[in-house]
């Protein structure tokens, strides 16, 4: 078994988990939802092993670096982060309905990594990427991105929840709103850490902690946007639906920062698109 076979299985694991969570929600199979948790957990373990193997394989070909250095590897890690964060939330909030809204993001990221036509080879690192800040920067950013993906899912959940219905399959609107807020502040803290580690790294590689390169600027745009959402809660008339929509738009910002910038704009982060 090599890492690419295990990653191939992970795609189907996350797709299956998403299908179980969605079916359990649609058909009110409350007892079946636990199999979603089991499939997600097993797939996460498998994917973790795959990432470890890929790391090891990189040493065998003399490149020797963490599997966090191109679009393929980052998408794999993105799906890993979403699955890990989702399991944490399921355990903390004791609610499996979130899975139907969170796990499709993990399945999509993993499937897109594999079928999106990206270079899946392990390549040696260019000098600029050879730094201990690589792991800190990528990991912090992607935990943040994963949280914003889940928050987007919770935003969709909030909009689908009919407030007039007393007995819904979904949690009460205030509960969804509270979970959404908690997920966003978690993401905001990690995004902040991601921007800071990036700035420190840039300063040690290029001698400037901020150069308004498109990727940096878009991460700041995302930061401004979520900072605004967090303050919006303090304003009357902005709670609930507005926040849910903002969580969805916020994730579009994240998606552009992560993905759009690499392909539509040029800048220092160009190696992210290879």
């Amino acid at each position, binding site marked *: 078994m090599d890492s690419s076979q295990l990653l191939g299985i992970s795609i189907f694991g996350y797709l299956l988990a998403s299908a179980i969570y969605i079916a359990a929600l649609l058909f009110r199979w409350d007892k079946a939802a636990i199999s979603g948790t089991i499939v997600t957990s097993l797939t996460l373990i498998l994917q973790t092993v795959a990432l470890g193997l890929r790391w090891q394989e990189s040493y065998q070909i003399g*490149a020797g670096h963490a599997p966090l250095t191109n679009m393929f590897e980052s998408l794999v890690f993105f799906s890993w982060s979403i699955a890990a964060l989702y399991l944490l939330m399921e355990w903390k909030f004791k609610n499996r309905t979130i899975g139907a809204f969170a796990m499709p993001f993990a399945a999509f990221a993993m499937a897109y990594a594999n079928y999106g036509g990206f270079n899946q080879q392990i390549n040696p690192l260019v000098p600029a990427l050879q730094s201990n800040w690589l792991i800190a920067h990528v990991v912090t950013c992607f935990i943040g991105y994963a949280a914003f993906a889940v928050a987007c899912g919770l935003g969709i959940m909030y909009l689908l929840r009919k407030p007039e219905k007393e007995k819904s399959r979904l949690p009460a609107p205030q509960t969804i709103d509270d979970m959404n807020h908690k997920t966003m502040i978690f993401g905001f803290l990690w995004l902040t850490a991601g921007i*800071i580690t990036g700035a420190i790294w840039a300063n040690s590689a290029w001698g400037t902690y901020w150069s308004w390169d498109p990727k940096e600027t878009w991460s*700041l745009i995302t930061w401004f946007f979520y900072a605004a959402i967090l303050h919006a809660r303090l304003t009357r008339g902005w709670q609930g639906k507005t926040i849910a929509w903002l969580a969805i738009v916020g994730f579009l910002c994240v998606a552009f920062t992560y993905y759009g910038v690499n392909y539509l704009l040029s800048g220092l982060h160009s190696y992210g698109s290879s």
Partner: protein
Amino acid sequence: MTYKKNSLWQFLASVKLALFVLFLLAASSILGTLIPQGKGPTLYAAFYGSKLAALMADPGELANILTRVTMLLGLDNMYHALWFQTLIGLLAVNLIVCSIDRLPAVWLMVSMDNLSLAQGKISKMPFKREFSGRGNMAETVDLLKESLATAGWRVAARTGEESTILFSQKAPWARLGVYVVHLSILVIIVGAMIGSYLGFSGGVNIPETLDSDKIYLFEDGRPVDLGFTVRCDWFSLSRYPNGAPKEYQSELVVIEEGQEVARKVIEVNDPLTYKGWTFYQSSYEPHNKIMVTVTNKQTGSKERFLTTPKEPMRWQAEGLLFGIKEVLATDTNQVYRYRLLISGPGGQNSLLLDDNSQGQIGTDQKDGYTFHVKEFYSTGLQVSKDPGVWWVYLGCAMMLVGLTIAFFMSHQRIWLIVSDDKFIISGTSHKNKIGFENKFNKLTGKLSKQFEAL
């Protein structure tokens, strides 16, 4: 305080202004990522022309108008344009005014004497339960003190005639977290301003074995004296087997008043810092020359030669004649092997050397020479001096600490009003009510084992 009634003050302190500025900063920042930054008017005309060509037949006129707008609004360097900096200034003013506006009340909550809070207020807290006492106030208080302490609440007490008030709190300073975050943004802005007014950012290319006492600013190419000299002893470019660059390295030597004061082999991500100036390995420049270093092992005398293939070289003082006869490929893409022909007092010889390796010849016992061959480069250094960077880092650290406090900690308070026959326990948390409710219920659950709930 009359100034607080001032409507301008209220506006500057408002969350609405914060929202407005944050959304505006986010939206306007997009422009600078779409429009190339730091180019001249002719480039913008061509840029808009090519973008508009897909939409219309004759984009020339519109492209000119857009170019004029770009230059007028400073969109060619928009993050440094006055209007953008004003927006950041407005954010700073908003942060300062809102903090001054709210801090006194918050500080009151942090530092207040909770034991003197009116009993009416205490019994109106969001979470509350009543229990029957032990018939003796002092005995009940002692029991409660002990069980609360084991649950992690250290209580203070104030005994009155009818009743005793017990109070305990956790993390009162958690209320300050958000102000630490606000302050951290101001610290970062101050750090950035120090950097932009007192800092320098430039570069210099130094050919191997040579030195420079100046750098050239990126902004306008103006030379700036370093106050010392930097020499590049050697530059080395190593490659992966497929030929892709693996690492760039330069050995830099700092010379001040004729003395060597610092020496370091720098590489990408590992710069040299001296007297506030930091030298980063950023690029290199090949010169299509080969550098041959010849050392007389006997006398230690050494000479460097820049040569090209087939060019005969002569070390006059040693009576040595040599040249590179041919350049061969190696297993590694773009790394070459050189065949040297050498003719000295002791006769003729030849050496086969890979780039950046050395070999020696000895034609007789007296003349032993070492040859080192490598391609000749200039090292490309990015050089900066930024006295504000530590302020920025301090601000970043404050922000992470502040966010952690603001998001994950809450000021939790509990009171107990104890009389002879009963006591009330009440509590409140300034955030995360659900989390506090669980904690409160656990605590009262514990108490219900000792006391009878009413």
